C-alpha cells in the first residue's frame, strides 16, 4: 500500500511535468493558429512572436494555455493525446489494419524474439567456450567488446544491404541486428556465472574425479543461472532496440520502427510518441515475463527469495 502510494506519486509528478512542458513547447503553434482564426494575440504578428521567448508568450497569452494540450500536430503531444492515440490504434483498430499498433508490434516482436533466441544461444555458446578454452578467452572476448563499440545505427544498413545481396530479407536481417545487440550481455553475464563456483567447489569435484562435462552440468551451469537471468533482461531490451533500429534504414512498411519513421516524415508527433510508448510497454512486458520465469525456475532450484 505504502509503495503503491509512492509509485503513484512519482507517476503523477511525471505527468504533471509533461503537461507543464507542453505549454511552452506548443505555444507558438497555438498562437499562430489563433491569429489566423482572428483572435487577439500579443504580440500580433508571427514575425514579432518569433523573436520572443516561449515563457514570455505564455505570460502574455494565458487564454491559449488550454489549447496547447489539444493541438492536432503539437511539437510535444500531451499525455492524454498519446493515450487516446494508443487506445485508438490498439483496442479500436482491427489487428489486421495497417494502422494497428498491435499489428506493427507483433512484426517487431517476432524479429525481437528470433534475434533474442539467436543472440542468447550464441552468447551462451561463446561463454562456454571462453570458460573452457584459454585460446577462446584471449581471442573472442576482445572482439566481442569491439563489436559493441560500433554504433548499431551505422552498422544496421550494411548488415541489411549485405544480406539482401545474398538473397536474405524480411525477418532475418532484423533478427540478426537484434542478436548482434543481445549476445553481448549474455556472454559477459554467462562467463561471470560459469566462473562463479569457488576453489573449494572445484576441488570437491576433483576429489570425485569428475569430468569437465560433469562439472559443467552439475556445478557451473546451475551456479550461473542468477547471472544468466540478469543478462537476459538486459539482452531482451537490447533485442527490441535492435529490431526497431533494423526497421529504420529499410524504409520498412511494418513494425514499430516503421511507425516511428512514418510519423517523423509526416510530422505526426502523436503517432511517434504512441509508437515509442508501445515499444516501451513491450520491453517492460518482456522483461517482466523473464522475471516471472526467473522466479519460478530459481524457486524450483530452492533459492530463497
Amino acid at each position, binding site marked *: 500500500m505504502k509503495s503503491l502510494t509512492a509509485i503513484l506519486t512519482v507517476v503523477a509528478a511525471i505527468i504533471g511535468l509533461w503537461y507543464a512542458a507542453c505549454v511552452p513547447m506548443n505555444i507558438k503553434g497555438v498562437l499562430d493558429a489563433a491569429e489566423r482564426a482572428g483572435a487577439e494575440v500579443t504580440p500580433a504578428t508571427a514575425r514579432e512572436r518569433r523573436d520572443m521567448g516561449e515563457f514570455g508568450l505564455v505570460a502574455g497569452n494565458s487564454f491559449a494555455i488550454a489549447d496547447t494540450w489539444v493541438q492536432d500536430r503539437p511539437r510535444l503531444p500531451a499525455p492524454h493525446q498519446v493515450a487516446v492515440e494508443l487506445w485508438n490504434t490498439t483496442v479500436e483498430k482491427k489487428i489486421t489494419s495497417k494502422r494497428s499498433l498491435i499489428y506493427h508490434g507483433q512484426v517487431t516482436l517476432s524479429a525481437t524474439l528470433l534475434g533474442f533466441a539467436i543472440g542468447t544461444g550464441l552468447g551462451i555458446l561463446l561463454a562456454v567456450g571462453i570458460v573452457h578454452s584459454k585460446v577462446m578467452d584471449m581471442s573472442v572476448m576482445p572482439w566481442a567488446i569491439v563489436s559493441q563499440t560500433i554504433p548499431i545505427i551505422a552498422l544496421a544498413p550494411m548488415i541489411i544491404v549485405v544480406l539482401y545481396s545474398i538473397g536474405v530479407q524480411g525477418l532475418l536481417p532484423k533478427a540478426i541486428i537484434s542478436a548482434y545487440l543481445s549476445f553481448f550481455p549474455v556472454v559477459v553475464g554467462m562467463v561471470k556465472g560459469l566462473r562463479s563456483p569457488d576453489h*573449494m*567447489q572445484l*576441488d*570437491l*569435484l*576433483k*576429489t*570425485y*574425479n*569428475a569430468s569437465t562435462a*560433469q562439472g559443467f552440468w*552439475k*556445478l557451473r551451469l*546451475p551456479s550461473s*543461472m542468477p547471472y544468466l537471468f540478469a543478462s537476459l533482461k538486459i539482452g531482451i531490451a537490447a533485442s527490441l532496440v535492435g529490431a526497431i533500429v533494423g526497421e529504420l534504414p529499410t524504409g520498412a512498411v511494418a513494425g514499430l520502427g516503421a511507425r516511428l519513421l512514418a510519423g517523423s516524415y509526416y510530422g505526426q508527433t502523436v503517432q511517434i510518441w504512441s509508437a515509442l510508448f508501445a515499444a516501451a510497454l513491450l520491453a517492460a512486458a518482456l522483461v517482466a515475463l523473464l522475471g516471472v520465469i526467473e522466479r519460478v525456475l530459481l524457486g524450483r*532450484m*530452492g*533459492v*530463497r527469495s
Partner: protein
Amino acid sequence: MNMETTPQALETQAGDSGISAQASVIEAKNLDLTFQTNDGPVHALKDVSLNINRGDFVSFIGPSGCGKTTFLRCIAALEQPTGGTLTVNGMTPDEARRQRAYGYVFQAAGLYPWRTIAKNIKLPLEIMGYSKAEQDKRVEQVLDLVELSGFGGKFPWQLSGGMQQRASIARALAFDADILLMDEPFGALDEIVRDHLNEQLLKLWARTNKTIGFVTHSIPEAVYLSTKIVVMSPRPGRIHDVIDSTLPKERPLDIRDSPEFIEIAHRVRDGLRAGHGYD
C-alpha cells in the same frame, strides 16, 4: 571402473580389521613442497615423513602456515609435492584420487544451495555412476550415520551450520571410500556444537572403521579424537612431534578431565610452543 570394488557394507565390524590393521595406508617419505611466489619460494612442507595405518585417526595440529592443510591436500592429490615420495593405498596420490580412494570434507560445508540434502549427498554417487536404487539406499544409510534421517528433503539453508557440516560429512561417506580426509571441518562452529560433533565423529569412526586424517587448530579436539597426533611447526612446514595416544578407543566426553588426557594435551602444547619459537 570403480564398480568392482564398491558394494561393500558401509559398516564393518571393528573386530574384522584385526589382522590388516597395521597395514600402512598412507606413507610419506622426505616430502617437500615449495610454492613459487612473487616474494620468492615458500617452503610449505620440508622433509615430512609419516606412516598412517589402516583404521588410524590421525590429527594434524599446528599454527597457521605449518603445512597441515597442505599435507592433507597432497594426500588428496590437490597439491603436487616437489620432492620426496608419497603413496596412498600403495599408489600415487593421483591414482588413488582417480580410484576415489578418499572422501574429503572441507572447512565450509559447501552444499549446493539448489539441491536438497539428499540430492547433495547423491552428487558424488551421480558422478560415479551408481544406479538410482543404490543412490537412494546409500543416502538413507549415511543420513542415519550422521543422525540426519528425515532431513533429506530439506534445502541447505533450512539447516543449522552444524547440521550442514554433518550433511557434508555424509556426502563424503556416501561412496564408501576407506579414507576420510577432514580439513578443519568444525573450525567455523561454536564450542557446544563442536563437542557434540566430535562425539558423533568418534562413534561414526568406530562403526565404519575408516582411516581418518583430521586437520585442526584445537588441542582438546585433537587429543579427544585421535589415535595419533601429529604436531607441526611453520617456516618451513615440518613435523615437530608424533604422539601415539594412550587413551582407550571408547571415549566419553568427560575423558577430557582424566590425568591421561591432560598429560597428552600438555605434551601437544609443549610441542606447539617449542616448534613455534615465538620469534
